[in-house]
């Protein structure tokens, strides 16, 4: 099992590169709506990638929408007040803003475990929601539109905008996923399952669980900020709903659906979520939540390690 695991982990960078090439190559031939679906899946996948880091040490954040929203608003406000429209700059700004907030809040949250970690993150994300809803300068509950994005100073032709955004998103996501994959192999990254199993033994070993969690928390927030900024520029509109608890619930949903087996899982999960969402919403707009809820139940009961465990079992066998 462990040999198979190392092998499949060693294959991850190659698989990631293959997926990147496939997206870049197939993009120009894909219909516009699939490119939109894919870009949003990448944005949500980035958030979920961060949640996966936290879930590996047994922490479930019911407020990750906070960083998604911070990233989106940072990008939107940068465009509005400074006229910045470069997509990469906006994404990096969203990431930096979210990481900064998480660095500060992390001193508090890294002390919490279990249900209390979840509830405190929920409370903080709802604070942001409450603030944004009442901030008229930022459009209150309506939010505001984000400037059309440019790429390195050029606005691509209308037919190519979606592809350009998708391509950049895919490259950025590739780098982020690879970095997280590397991180999982470092001593600090490997500490996660140990923290989940028995925190006191981690401390006997001479490692600081709180420090490890703080680092993961900041990384997770940075990824969520990146995803939020990407979603903001892709959709072209942001509103306080991005920080509401149901948004966090959606991210947790995808995390559980995907499982923590590999850095590829979050993106697969986000894509499957997007497809279920689109198809179910299309077929019957009043029961799509029911379909999602049923999927979540089935996954929790029959695949406690997420959809990714399907792949691993087959490979190991």
């Amino acid at each position: 099992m462990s040999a198979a695991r190392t092998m499949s982990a060693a294959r991850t960078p190659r698989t990631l590169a293959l997926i990147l090439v496939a997206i870049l190559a197939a993009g120009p031939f894909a219909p516009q709506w699939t490119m939109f679906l894919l870009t949003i899946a990448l944005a949500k996948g980035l958030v979920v990638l961060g949640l996966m880091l936290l879930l590996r040490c047994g922490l479930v954040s019911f407020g990750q929408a906070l960083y998604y929203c911070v990233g989106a608003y940072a990008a939107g406000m940068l465009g509005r007040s400074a006229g910045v429209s470069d997509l990469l700059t906006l994404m990096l700004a969203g990431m930096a803003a979210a990481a900064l907030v998480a660095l500060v809040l992390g001193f508090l949250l890294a002390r919490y475990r279990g249900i209390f970690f979840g509830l405190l993150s929920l409370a903080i994300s709802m604070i942001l929601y409450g603030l944004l809803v009442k901030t008229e300068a930022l459009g209150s509950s309506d939010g505001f539109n984000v400037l059309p994005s440019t790429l390195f100073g050029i606005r691509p032709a209308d037919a190519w905008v979606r592809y350009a955004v998708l391509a950049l998103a895919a490259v950025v996501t590739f780098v982020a996923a690879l970095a997280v994959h590397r991180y999982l192999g470092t001593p600090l990254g490997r500490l996660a399952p140990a923290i989940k199993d028995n925190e006191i033994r981690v401390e006997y070993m001479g490692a600081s669980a709180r420090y490890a969690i703080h680092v993961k928390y900041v990384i997770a927030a940075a990824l969520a900020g990146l995803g939020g900024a990407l979603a903001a520029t892709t959709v072209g509109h942001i509103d306080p709903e991005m920080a509401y608890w149901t948004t966090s619930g959606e991210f947790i949903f995808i995390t559980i659906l995907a499982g923590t087996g590999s850095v590829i899982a979050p993106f697969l999960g986000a894509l499957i979520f997007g497809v279920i969402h689109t198809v179910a919403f299309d077929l019957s707009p009043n029961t799509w939540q029911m379909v999602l809820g049923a999927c979540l139940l089935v996954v929790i009961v029959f695949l406690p390690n997420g959809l990714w465990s399907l792949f691993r079992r087959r490979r190991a066998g």
Partner: protein
Amino acid sequence: MSLEQFLAVLIDGIIYSAWLFVAAIGLTLIYGVMKIVNVTHGSFYALGAYAAASITGALLARGMPPALSYAVLLGSALLVTLIVAPLIERGILRFMYVKDEVVILLITYALFLILEDAIKLVWGVNPYFIAEPYGLLGSFDVFDLTYPYYNLILVGVAIVCGVGLAWMLNHTRTGKLLVAVIHDTEVSRAMGINVDRMYLFTFTFGSLLAAIGGAFTAPTVSVVPGLGVEVIVLSFAVVVIGGLGSLPGAALGAVIVGLVRSATVHYLPQAELFVIYLVMAMVLAFRPRGLFSIAEARKI
């Protein structure tokens, strides 16, 4: 700050506290006994509101005397809970108790998503209104401010629910058994208490309290899809402030949130929403287990 405005803050605060208390008390009961943070609580609130609005509305249309509608509100909450809650507990939740606290929370989240749409399937997406129970009673004046008498019913419901639950826990056989289960599930089981039946009872009773909250709120609002979504976070906030699983805690949490909110609505309306969650975050930051909580031993 004039006396009049102060009174207005106080009255609004009390009414809002009463509503919060009824909405949240079942959540704290279920957490205390079953250690489940129950997201479906909001669904039961919505179920209660829908059942009350549709049944009361239908009966009034057939010529029922409006004075009976209060009993019908209660009866519809009871009816819908007795159908749905045992179904969920026996059909799904009871197989999940071995799982981790956070995983059970996610399961109730999945059930919440399912119930949200089930409600739309049964009642459709058009809003329901029943104004009769609200309009029947008229209103009273405090200085220049007018308050409907119906709001006093909400306060009454809150007091009856709180006192009733406290009496049930301390003075009935079932209540005393429940206290034992709250204290230590495994020892209770070893002593011969039928813990499974206690869980079924608790889940149904806790959900009933949420449904009652919804049923008695129904006449004051339009009952629309998504009604329970906000109730979930609000009741989480109330329960967390007081301490998960604590009955006096839920009362204190409701009063704090109610008064703080009504004060901000009057003096600083921009902060209305965020102040509730600020209080919740502050309490979690300084007293992570809430204001009324017992210290738990660290387990190795």
